[in-house]
Protein backbone atom coordinates (compact mmCIF):
# COMPACT_ATOMS: atom_id res chain seq x y z
CA UNK A 1 0.00 0.00 0.00
CA UNK A 2 1.00 3.61 -0.44
CA UNK A 3 0.78 6.07 2.42
CA UNK A 4 1.31 9.81 2.60
CA UNK A 5 3.20 11.00 5.66
CA UNK A 6 2.06 14.56 6.28
CA UNK A 7 4.47 16.75 8.20
CA UNK A 8 2.74 19.25 10.48
CA UNK A 9 5.02 21.71 12.21
CA UNK A 10 4.80 24.89 14.20
CA UNK A 11 6.06 27.59 11.81
CA UNK A 12 6.32 30.24 14.51
CA UNK A 13 8.51 27.93 16.57
CA UNK A 14 10.63 27.06 13.54
CA UNK A 15 11.16 30.74 12.75
CA UNK A 16 12.70 31.23 16.19
CA UNK A 17 14.95 28.18 16.01
CA UNK A 18 18.70 28.72 16.24
CA UNK A 19 20.78 28.41 13.10
CA UNK A 20 22.61 25.44 14.60
CA UNK A 21 19.34 23.60 15.36
CA UNK A 22 18.11 24.16 11.81
CA UNK A 23 21.35 22.76 10.40
CA UNK A 24 21.07 19.75 12.69
CA UNK A 25 17.45 19.17 11.67
CA UNK A 26 18.23 19.42 7.96
CA UNK A 27 20.97 16.85 8.46
CA UNK A 28 18.51 14.56 10.19
CA UNK A 29 16.02 14.97 7.34
CA UNK A 30 18.73 14.12 4.83
CA UNK A 31 19.63 10.93 6.68
CA UNK A 32 15.95 10.02 7.07
CA UNK A 33 15.23 10.49 3.37
CA UNK A 34 18.27 8.42 2.43
CA UNK A 35 17.21 5.65 4.83
CA UNK A 36 13.82 5.45 3.12
CA UNK A 37 15.50 5.42 -0.31
CA UNK A 38 17.87 2.64 0.77
CA UNK A 39 14.96 0.61 2.14
CA UNK A 40 13.20 0.99 -1.21
CA UNK A 41 10.07 2.50 0.34
CA UNK A 42 10.33 6.11 -0.83
CA UNK A 43 7.97 7.04 -3.68
CA UNK A 44 8.24 10.81 -3.44
CA UNK A 45 8.04 13.86 -1.26
CA UNK A 46 8.59 17.60 -1.02
CA UNK A 47 9.07 20.43 1.39
CA UNK A 48 6.46 23.15 1.25
CA UNK A 49 7.07 26.88 1.61
CA UNK A 50 5.64 28.72 4.61
CA UNK A 51 1.84 28.75 4.84
CA UNK A 52 1.91 32.58 4.66
CA UNK A 53 3.00 32.10 1.06
CA UNK A 54 -0.06 29.96 0.38
CA UNK A 55 -3.17 31.25 -1.38
CA UNK A 56 -6.65 29.73 -1.29
CA UNK A 57 -9.04 29.71 -4.23
CA UNK A 58 -12.71 28.82 -4.38
CA UNK A 59 -15.63 29.48 -6.73
CA UNK A 60 -18.79 30.94 -5.25
CA UNK A 61 -21.85 31.75 -7.40
CA UNK A 62 -19.72 31.50 -10.50
CA UNK A 63 -17.16 33.95 -9.19
CA UNK A 64 -13.65 32.94 -8.29
CA UNK A 65 -12.52 34.09 -4.88
CA UNK A 66 -8.86 34.28 -4.06
CA UNK A 67 -7.68 34.73 -0.50
CA UNK A 68 -4.24 35.27 0.97
CA UNK A 69 -2.97 32.63 3.39
CA UNK A 70 -3.56 28.96 4.21
CA UNK A 71 -6.90 27.13 4.27
CA UNK A 72 -6.99 26.58 8.01
CA UNK A 73 -5.42 28.55 10.82
CA UNK A 74 -3.98 26.12 13.30
CA UNK A 75 -1.11 25.78 15.71
CA UNK A 76 0.67 23.44 13.30
CA UNK A 77 0.88 23.88 9.55
CA UNK A 78 1.49 21.42 6.74
CA UNK A 79 5.17 21.81 5.95
CA UNK A 80 5.86 18.90 3.64
CA UNK A 81 5.08 15.30 2.87
CA UNK A 82 6.53 11.97 1.88
CA UNK A 83 4.81 9.26 -0.11
CA UNK A 84 5.99 5.78 0.81
CA UNK A 85 5.25 2.20 -0.13
CA UNK A 86 4.67 0.11 3.01
CA UNK A 87 3.25 -3.33 3.53
CA UNK A 88 0.79 -2.22 6.19
CA UNK A 89 -0.14 0.58 8.61
CA UNK A 90 2.32 -0.54 11.28
CA UNK A 91 5.21 -0.32 8.80
CA UNK A 92 4.06 3.16 7.72
CA UNK A 93 3.71 4.26 11.35
CA UNK A 94 7.23 3.14 12.16
CA UNK A 95 8.61 5.24 9.27
CA UNK A 96 6.51 8.21 10.42
CA UNK A 97 7.91 7.85 13.93
CA UNK A 98 11.48 8.09 12.57
CA UNK A 99 10.81 11.40 10.80
CA UNK A 100 12.68 14.23 12.59
CA UNK A 101 9.40 16.15 12.72
CA UNK A 102 7.81 13.53 15.03
CA UNK A 103 10.05 15.08 17.70
CA UNK A 104 8.97 18.72 17.08
CA UNK A 105 5.50 18.50 15.55
CA UNK A 106 2.92 15.96 14.45
CA UNK A 107 2.97 13.34 11.71
CA UNK A 108 -0.24 12.19 10.07
CA UNK A 109 -0.31 8.91 8.16
CA UNK A 110 -2.96 8.65 5.43
CA UNK A 111 -3.53 5.72 3.09
CA UNK A 112 -3.47 6.72 -0.58
CA UNK A 113 -6.52 5.50 -2.49
CA UNK A 114 -5.76 3.39 -5.55
CA UNK A 115 -7.25 5.05 -8.64
Amino acid at each position, binding site marked *: *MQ*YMLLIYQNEAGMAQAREQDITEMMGAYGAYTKAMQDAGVLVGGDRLDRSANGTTVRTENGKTKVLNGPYAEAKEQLGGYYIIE*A*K*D*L*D*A*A*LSWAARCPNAQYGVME*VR*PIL*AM
Partner: protein
Amino acid sequence: MAAAGDATGRAVEAAARHSYGKLVAYLAARTGDVAGAEDSLSEAFAAALAAWPEQGIPRAPEAWLLAVARRKSIDRARRRRTHQHAGTVLLMLAEEITAHGDSDAAIPDERLRLMFVCAHPAIEEAARAPLILQAVLGLDAAAIASAFLVSPATMGQRLVRAKRKISAAGIPFRLPERDELPERLDAVLDAIYAAFAAGWADPAGTVARSRHFADEAIWLGRLVVMLQPDAPEALGLLALMLHAEARRAARRDEDGEFVPLDEQDVSRWDAGLIDEAETILRRASAMGTIGRFQLEAAVQSAHAVRRRTGRADWLAILELYDALLRLTQSPVVAINRAVAISELHGPRAALVALDAVAGDPRLAEYQPYWAARAGMSALAGERAAADDAYLRAIGLEADPAVRRFLQKRRGA
Protein backbone atom coordinates in the same frame (compact mmCIF):
# COMPACT_ATOMS: atom_id res chain seq x y z
CA MET B 1 -31.88 -17.90 11.34
CA ALA B 2 -34.12 -18.01 14.40
CA ALA B 3 -37.13 -18.49 12.11
CA ALA B 4 -35.94 -21.91 10.98
CA GLY B 5 -37.19 -24.13 13.75
CA ASP B 6 -36.33 -27.48 12.15
CA ALA B 7 -33.24 -29.63 12.54
CA THR B 8 -31.37 -27.85 9.76
CA GLY B 9 -32.08 -24.46 11.25
CA ARG B 10 -30.75 -25.71 14.57
CA ALA B 11 -27.64 -27.16 12.91
CA VAL B 12 -26.95 -23.86 11.15
CA GLU B 13 -27.45 -21.97 14.39
CA ALA B 14 -25.11 -24.33 16.24
CA ALA B 15 -22.50 -23.87 13.50
CA ALA B 16 -22.95 -20.10 13.72
CA ARG B 17 -22.35 -20.16 17.46
CA HIS B 18 -19.32 -22.39 17.35
CA SER B 19 -17.65 -21.19 14.17
CA TYR B 20 -18.50 -17.53 13.72
CA GLY B 21 -15.42 -15.89 15.23
CA LYS B 22 -13.02 -18.53 13.99
CA LEU B 23 -14.21 -18.16 10.39
CA VAL B 24 -14.34 -14.34 10.47
CA ALA B 25 -10.80 -14.32 11.86
CA TYR B 26 -9.57 -16.75 9.21
CA LEU B 27 -11.08 -14.79 6.32
CA ALA B 28 -10.20 -11.32 7.65
CA ALA B 29 -6.59 -12.35 8.31
CA ARG B 30 -6.29 -13.07 4.57
CA THR B 31 -8.25 -10.15 3.13
CA GLY B 32 -7.55 -7.53 5.83
CA ASP B 33 -11.25 -6.72 5.62
CA VAL B 34 -13.38 -7.56 8.68
CA ALA B 35 -16.66 -6.22 7.29
CA GLY B 36 -16.16 -8.15 4.05
CA ALA B 37 -15.38 -11.33 6.02
CA GLU B 38 -18.60 -10.93 8.02
CA ASP B 39 -20.60 -10.39 4.84
CA SER B 40 -19.07 -13.43 3.13
CA LEU B 41 -19.82 -15.54 6.18
CA SER B 42 -23.44 -14.46 6.46
CA GLU B 43 -23.87 -15.35 2.78
CA ALA B 44 -22.40 -18.76 3.59
CA PHE B 45 -24.89 -19.24 6.45
CA ALA B 46 -27.72 -18.31 4.09
CA ALA B 47 -26.40 -20.87 1.59
CA ALA B 48 -26.30 -23.50 4.35
CA LEU B 49 -29.95 -22.86 5.20
CA ALA B 50 -30.81 -23.41 1.54
CA ALA B 51 -28.56 -26.43 0.86
CA TRP B 52 -28.48 -28.50 4.06
CA PRO B 53 -32.18 -29.53 4.11
CA GLU B 54 -31.67 -31.28 0.75
CA GLN B 55 -28.04 -32.45 0.99
CA GLY B 56 -28.06 -33.23 4.69
CA ILE B 57 -25.82 -31.62 7.31
CA PRO B 58 -22.18 -32.00 6.18
CA ARG B 59 -19.71 -34.03 8.25
CA ALA B 60 -17.52 -30.96 8.71
CA PRO B 61 -19.93 -27.98 8.82
CA GLU B 62 -17.18 -25.48 9.59
CA ALA B 63 -15.11 -26.51 6.57
CA TRP B 64 -18.25 -26.43 4.40
CA LEU B 65 -19.07 -22.88 5.54
CA LEU B 66 -15.46 -21.78 5.07
CA ALA B 67 -15.38 -23.13 1.50
CA VAL B 68 -18.49 -21.10 0.57
CA ALA B 69 -17.36 -17.98 2.44
CA ARG B 70 -13.87 -18.18 0.91
CA ARG B 71 -15.40 -18.31 -2.57
CA LYS B 72 -17.56 -15.24 -1.71
CA SER B 73 -14.46 -13.41 -0.43
CA ILE B 74 -12.56 -14.21 -3.63
CA ASP B 75 -15.45 -12.79 -5.67
CA ARG B 76 -15.52 -9.73 -3.46
CA ALA B 77 -11.76 -9.14 -3.85
CA ARG B 78 -11.98 -9.68 -7.63
CA ARG B 79 -14.70 -7.09 -8.01
CA ARG B 80 -12.39 -4.50 -6.56
CA ARG B 81 -9.81 -5.21 -9.28
CA THR B 82 -6.98 -3.42 -7.51
CA HIS B 83 -3.36 -4.40 -7.35
CA GLN B 84 -3.62 -4.91 -3.60
CA HIS B 85 -6.47 -7.37 -3.93
CA ALA B 86 -4.88 -9.42 -6.69
CA GLY B 87 -2.51 -10.91 -4.12
CA THR B 88 -5.42 -11.71 -1.83
CA VAL B 89 -7.22 -13.56 -4.60
CA LEU B 90 -4.14 -15.63 -5.45
CA LEU B 91 -3.50 -16.53 -1.81
CA MET B 92 -7.09 -17.60 -1.22
CA LEU B 93 -7.29 -19.55 -4.48
CA ALA B 94 -4.16 -21.44 -3.44
CA GLU B 95 -5.72 -22.22 -0.05
CA GLU B 96 -8.93 -23.31 -1.70
CA ILE B 97 -7.01 -25.93 -3.67
CA THR B 98 -5.12 -27.30 -0.67
CA ALA B 99 -8.02 -27.05 1.82
CA HIS B 100 -9.30 -30.27 3.32
CA GLY B 101 -13.05 -29.97 2.91
CA ASP B 102 -13.77 -32.90 5.17
CA SER B 103 -12.08 -31.64 8.32
CA ASP B 104 -12.82 -28.75 10.70
CA ALA B 105 -9.60 -29.30 12.67
CA ALA B 106 -7.36 -28.14 9.80
CA ILE B 107 -8.68 -24.54 9.92
CA PRO B 108 -6.06 -22.41 11.71
CA ASP B 109 -7.27 -20.33 14.66
CA GLU B 110 -6.58 -16.62 14.02
CA ARG B 111 -8.89 -15.27 16.72
CA LEU B 112 -6.14 -13.87 18.93
CA ARG B 113 -4.61 -11.96 16.01
CA LEU B 114 -8.06 -10.62 15.13
CA MET B 115 -8.49 -9.43 18.73
CA PHE B 116 -5.23 -7.52 18.56
CA VAL B 117 -6.23 -5.92 15.25
CA CYS B 118 -9.43 -4.72 16.94
CA ALA B 119 -7.36 -3.34 19.84
CA HIS B 120 -4.92 -1.47 17.55
CA PRO B 121 -4.17 2.13 18.69
CA ALA B 122 -5.27 3.40 15.24
CA ILE B 123 -8.82 2.28 16.13
CA GLU B 124 -10.98 4.75 18.05
CA GLU B 125 -10.67 3.70 21.70
CA ALA B 126 -14.41 3.43 22.35
CA ALA B 127 -14.73 1.03 19.41
CA ARG B 128 -12.01 -1.47 20.35
CA ALA B 129 -13.83 -3.71 22.83
CA PRO B 130 -17.18 -3.61 20.92
CA LEU B 131 -15.33 -4.53 17.76
CA ILE B 132 -13.85 -7.63 19.37
CA LEU B 133 -17.29 -8.67 20.61
CA GLN B 134 -18.79 -8.32 17.16
CA ALA B 135 -15.99 -9.78 15.07
CA VAL B 136 -14.93 -12.61 17.37
CA LEU B 137 -18.22 -13.53 19.05
CA GLY B 138 -20.78 -12.32 16.51
CA LEU B 139 -22.71 -10.16 19.00
CA ASP B 140 -25.02 -7.68 17.27
CA ALA B 141 -24.65 -3.92 17.73
CA ALA B 142 -27.78 -3.65 19.92
CA ALA B 143 -26.53 -6.23 22.43
CA ILE B 144 -23.09 -4.60 22.54
CA ALA B 145 -24.66 -1.15 22.94
CA SER B 146 -26.58 -2.21 26.04
CA ALA B 147 -23.44 -3.70 27.59
CA PHE B 148 -21.58 -0.41 27.04
CA LEU B 149 -24.47 1.89 28.03
CA VAL B 150 -24.72 3.69 24.63
CA SER B 151 -27.47 3.82 22.01
CA PRO B 152 -27.63 1.06 19.36
CA ALA B 153 -27.41 3.64 16.54
CA THR B 154 -24.23 5.17 18.01
CA MET B 155 -22.71 1.73 18.51
CA GLY B 156 -23.65 0.67 14.98
CA GLN B 157 -21.90 3.68 13.45
CA ARG B 158 -18.87 3.23 15.66
CA LEU B 159 -18.46 -0.38 14.52
CA VAL B 160 -18.91 0.46 10.82
CA ARG B 161 -16.31 3.25 11.05
CA ALA B 162 -13.82 1.01 12.84
CA LYS B 163 -14.15 -1.84 10.34
CA ARG B 164 -13.76 0.55 7.44
CA LYS B 165 -10.56 1.85 9.00
CA ILE B 166 -9.07 -1.63 9.47
CA SER B 167 -9.17 -2.32 5.75
CA ALA B 168 -8.66 1.25 4.47
CA ALA B 169 -5.66 2.02 6.67
CA GLY B 170 -4.14 -1.45 6.25
CA ILE B 171 -3.95 -2.50 9.90
CA PRO B 172 -1.94 -5.75 9.87
CA PHE B 173 -3.05 -9.08 11.35
CA ARG B 174 -0.14 -9.83 13.63
CA LEU B 175 0.58 -10.28 17.32
CA PRO B 176 2.02 -7.17 19.01
CA GLU B 177 5.69 -6.86 19.89
CA ARG B 178 6.69 -6.94 23.55
CA ASP B 179 6.91 -3.14 23.92
CA GLU B 180 3.43 -2.52 22.48
CA LEU B 181 1.83 -5.36 24.41
CA PRO B 182 0.61 -3.67 27.66
CA GLU B 183 -1.61 -1.09 25.91
CA ARG B 184 -3.00 -3.57 23.44
CA LEU B 185 -3.58 -6.22 26.08
CA ASP B 186 -5.69 -3.84 28.19
CA ALA B 187 -8.11 -3.33 25.32
CA VAL B 188 -8.31 -7.07 24.68
CA LEU B 189 -8.97 -7.85 28.36
CA ASP B 190 -11.68 -5.15 28.56
CA ALA B 191 -13.43 -6.72 25.60
CA ILE B 192 -13.25 -10.24 26.98
CA TYR B 193 -14.73 -9.01 30.26
CA ALA B 194 -17.53 -7.20 28.43
CA ALA B 195 -18.29 -10.43 26.54
CA PHE B 196 -18.41 -12.33 29.79
CA ALA B 197 -20.75 -9.73 31.30
CA ALA B 198 -23.05 -10.02 28.27
CA GLY B 199 -23.29 -13.77 28.87
CA TRP B 200 -23.60 -13.29 32.60
CA ALA B 201 -26.76 -11.20 32.18
CA ASP B 202 -28.61 -14.41 31.45
CA PRO B 203 -27.70 -16.49 34.51
CA ALA B 204 -29.95 -19.43 33.75
CA GLY B 205 -28.26 -19.87 30.40
CA THR B 206 -31.70 -20.29 28.89
CA VAL B 207 -30.73 -18.21 25.90
CA ALA B 208 -28.15 -20.52 24.35
CA ARG B 209 -26.40 -17.65 22.63
CA SER B 210 -25.67 -15.59 25.72
CA ARG B 211 -24.60 -18.65 27.74
CA HIS B 212 -22.19 -19.21 24.92
CA PHE B 213 -20.71 -15.70 25.36
CA ALA B 214 -19.68 -16.47 28.93
CA ASP B 215 -18.10 -19.77 27.87
CA GLU B 216 -16.37 -18.12 24.94
CA ALA B 217 -15.12 -15.29 27.14
CA ILE B 218 -13.55 -17.78 29.54
CA TRP B 219 -12.07 -19.60 26.58
CA LEU B 220 -10.62 -16.33 25.24
CA GLY B 221 -9.33 -15.54 28.73
CA ARG B 222 -7.55 -18.91 28.89
CA LEU B 223 -6.13 -18.36 25.41
CA VAL B 224 -4.62 -14.99 26.37
CA VAL B 225 -3.17 -16.46 29.58
CA MET B 226 -1.66 -19.32 27.61
CA LEU B 227 -0.02 -16.89 25.16
CA GLN B 228 0.91 -14.27 27.77
CA PRO B 229 1.58 -16.28 30.94
CA ASP B 230 3.40 -13.42 32.68
CA ALA B 231 0.65 -10.78 32.37
CA PRO B 232 -0.89 -10.45 35.86
CA GLU B 233 -4.05 -8.67 34.69
CA ALA B 234 -4.80 -11.45 32.20
CA LEU B 235 -4.58 -13.90 35.11
CA GLY B 236 -6.73 -11.58 37.24
CA LEU B 237 -9.44 -11.47 34.61
CA LEU B 238 -9.48 -15.25 34.24
CA ALA B 239 -9.73 -15.67 38.03
CA LEU B 240 -12.58 -13.15 38.14
CA MET B 241 -14.55 -14.95 35.43
CA LEU B 242 -14.01 -18.38 36.98
CA HIS B 243 -15.20 -17.12 40.40
CA ALA B 244 -18.39 -15.76 38.84
CA GLU B 245 -18.91 -18.86 36.71
CA ALA B 246 -18.56 -21.04 39.83
CA ARG B 247 -21.74 -19.46 41.19
CA ARG B 248 -23.86 -19.82 38.06
CA ALA B 249 -25.94 -22.80 39.28
CA ALA B 250 -26.65 -21.11 42.62
CA ARG B 251 -28.12 -18.00 41.00
CA ARG B 252 -31.45 -19.77 40.41
CA ASP B 253 -33.51 -21.91 42.80
CA GLU B 254 -35.42 -25.09 41.87
CA ASP B 255 -38.28 -23.00 40.49
CA GLY B 256 -35.97 -20.93 38.32
CA GLU B 257 -36.29 -17.89 40.59
CA PHE B 258 -33.41 -15.42 41.02
CA VAL B 259 -31.28 -15.80 44.16
CA PRO B 260 -29.08 -12.83 45.15
CA LEU B 261 -25.45 -13.51 46.05
CA ASP B 262 -25.86 -13.20 49.84
CA GLU B 263 -28.72 -15.73 49.88
CA GLN B 264 -27.10 -18.32 47.62
CA ASP B 265 -26.64 -21.89 48.86
CA VAL B 266 -22.83 -22.21 49.00
CA SER B 267 -23.05 -25.97 48.50
CA ARG B 268 -24.21 -25.22 44.96
CA TRP B 269 -21.07 -23.23 44.19
CA ASP B 270 -18.58 -25.10 42.00
CA ALA B 271 -15.65 -25.83 44.34
CA GLY B 272 -13.36 -26.90 41.48
CA LEU B 273 -13.76 -23.61 39.65
CA ILE B 274 -13.28 -21.61 42.85
CA ASP B 275 -10.06 -23.48 43.64
CA GLU B 276 -8.79 -22.89 40.13
CA ALA B 277 -9.65 -19.18 40.41
CA GLU B 278 -7.79 -18.90 43.74
CA THR B 279 -4.69 -20.61 42.36
CA ILE B 280 -4.64 -18.29 39.34
CA LEU B 281 -5.14 -15.19 41.47
CA ARG B 282 -2.24 -16.21 43.74
CA ARG B 283 -0.06 -16.59 40.66
CA ALA B 284 -1.06 -13.07 39.56
CA SER B 285 -0.44 -11.38 42.91
CA ALA B 286 2.99 -13.02 43.17
CA MET B 287 3.99 -10.89 40.17
CA GLY B 288 3.60 -7.75 42.27
CA THR B 289 1.68 -5.49 39.86
CA ILE B 290 -1.83 -4.76 41.03
CA GLY B 291 -4.62 -3.90 38.59
CA ARG B 292 -8.35 -3.62 38.15
CA PHE B 293 -9.07 -7.25 37.30
CA GLN B 294 -6.96 -8.64 40.12
CA LEU B 295 -8.83 -6.37 42.57
CA GLU B 296 -12.21 -7.49 41.18
CA ALA B 297 -11.14 -11.12 41.44
CA ALA B 298 -10.01 -10.54 45.03
CA VAL B 299 -13.51 -9.19 45.81
CA GLN B 300 -14.99 -12.45 44.51
CA SER B 301 -12.45 -14.34 46.58
CA ALA B 302 -13.64 -12.44 49.69
CA HIS B 303 -17.22 -13.50 48.87
CA ALA B 304 -16.10 -17.13 48.47
CA VAL B 305 -14.85 -17.03 52.08
CA ARG B 306 -18.52 -17.54 53.07
CA ARG B 307 -18.08 -21.23 52.20
CA ARG B 308 -15.89 -21.65 55.28
CA THR B 309 -16.94 -18.89 57.70
CA GLY B 310 -20.62 -18.41 56.86
CA ARG B 311 -20.03 -14.71 56.14
CA ALA B 312 -18.32 -12.81 53.34
CA ASP B 313 -15.26 -10.79 54.37
CA TRP B 314 -16.96 -7.39 54.02
CA LEU B 315 -14.04 -5.47 55.51
CA ALA B 316 -11.75 -6.79 52.77
CA ILE B 317 -14.44 -6.15 50.17
CA LEU B 318 -14.79 -2.51 51.18
CA GLU B 319 -11.00 -2.00 51.10
CA LEU B 320 -10.82 -3.59 47.66
CA TYR B 321 -13.63 -1.39 46.33
CA ASP B 322 -11.88 1.68 47.81
CA ALA B 323 -8.80 0.75 45.79
CA LEU B 324 -10.89 0.05 42.69
CA LEU B 325 -12.67 3.38 42.94
CA ARG B 326 -9.34 5.22 43.15
CA LEU B 327 -8.15 3.29 40.09
CA THR B 328 -11.23 3.50 37.85
CA GLN B 329 -13.53 6.31 39.12
CA SER B 330 -16.30 4.03 37.86
CA PRO B 331 -19.88 4.71 39.07
CA VAL B 332 -20.52 0.96 38.93
CA VAL B 333 -17.70 0.40 41.43
CA ALA B 334 -19.18 3.17 43.59
CA ILE B 335 -22.48 1.25 43.76
CA ASN B 336 -20.78 -1.97 44.83
CA ARG B 337 -18.74 -0.06 47.38
CA ALA B 338 -21.97 1.37 48.83
CA VAL B 339 -23.34 -2.16 49.20
CA ALA B 340 -20.25 -3.09 51.25
CA ILE B 341 -20.72 0.06 53.37
CA SER B 342 -24.32 -0.99 53.99
CA GLU B 343 -23.15 -4.38 55.30
CA LEU B 344 -20.53 -2.83 57.60
CA HIS B 345 -22.00 0.52 58.67
CA GLY B 346 -25.71 0.30 57.89
CA PRO B 347 -27.99 1.57 55.12
CA ARG B 348 -27.88 5.29 55.97
CA ALA B 349 -24.09 5.49 55.53
CA ALA B 350 -24.51 3.55 52.29
CA LEU B 351 -27.15 5.96 50.97
CA VAL B 352 -24.79 8.87 51.65
CA ALA B 353 -22.13 7.06 49.57
CA LEU B 354 -24.65 6.47 46.77
CA ASP B 355 -25.69 10.13 46.79
CA ALA B 356 -22.11 11.01 45.90
CA VAL B 357 -22.53 9.42 42.45
CA ALA B 358 -26.27 10.07 41.99
CA GLY B 359 -25.54 12.94 39.60
CA ASP B 360 -23.89 10.68 37.01
CA PRO B 361 -26.28 10.66 34.01
CA ARG B 362 -25.22 7.11 33.09
CA LEU B 363 -26.88 5.81 36.25
CA ALA B 364 -30.38 7.09 35.47
CA GLU B 365 -31.02 4.00 33.34
CA TYR B 366 -28.78 1.58 35.22
CA GLN B 367 -30.82 -1.06 37.03
CA PRO B 368 -28.27 -2.08 39.73
CA TYR B 369 -28.11 1.54 40.93
CA TRP B 370 -31.85 1.68 41.57
CA ALA B 371 -31.98 -1.83 43.03
CA ALA B 372 -29.18 -0.94 45.47
CA ARG B 373 -30.89 2.32 46.36
CA ALA B 374 -34.20 0.54 46.89
CA GLY B 375 -32.73 -2.11 49.17
CA MET B 376 -30.90 0.44 51.32
CA SER B 377 -33.91 2.77 51.57
CA ALA B 378 -36.07 -0.17 52.66
CA LEU B 379 -33.53 -1.14 55.34
CA ALA B 380 -33.42 2.47 56.53
CA GLY B 381 -37.22 2.45 56.87
CA GLU B 382 -37.75 4.98 54.08
CA ARG B 383 -40.67 3.19 52.47
CA ALA B 384 -41.68 5.82 49.91
CA ALA B 385 -38.13 6.24 48.61
CA ALA B 386 -37.67 2.44 48.51
CA ASP B 387 -40.93 1.99 46.61
CA ASP B 388 -39.99 4.59 44.04
CA ALA B 389 -36.49 3.13 43.52
CA TYR B 390 -37.85 -0.43 43.20
CA LEU B 391 -40.28 0.75 40.56
CA ARG B 392 -37.45 2.27 38.53
CA ALA B 393 -35.29 -0.85 38.91
CA ILE B 394 -38.20 -3.09 37.82
CA GLY B 395 -38.86 -0.92 34.80
CA LEU B 396 -35.22 -1.13 33.71
CA GLU B 397 -34.74 -4.90 34.15
CA ALA B 398 -34.91 -7.16 31.09
CA ASP B 399 -34.53 -10.54 32.86
CA PRO B 400 -38.01 -11.79 33.95
CA ALA B 401 -36.65 -13.74 36.95
CA VAL B 402 -34.80 -10.72 38.31
CA ARG B 403 -37.89 -8.59 37.65
CA ARG B 404 -40.06 -10.98 39.68
CA PHE B 405 -37.48 -10.92 42.47
CA LEU B 406 -37.55 -7.10 42.58
CA GLN B 407 -41.36 -7.08 42.50
CA LYS B 408 -41.45 -9.46 45.49
CA ARG B 409 -39.00 -7.27 47.40
CA ARG B 410 -41.07 -4.21 46.61
CA GLY B 411 -44.20 -5.89 47.92
CA ALA B 412 -42.47 -7.13 51.10
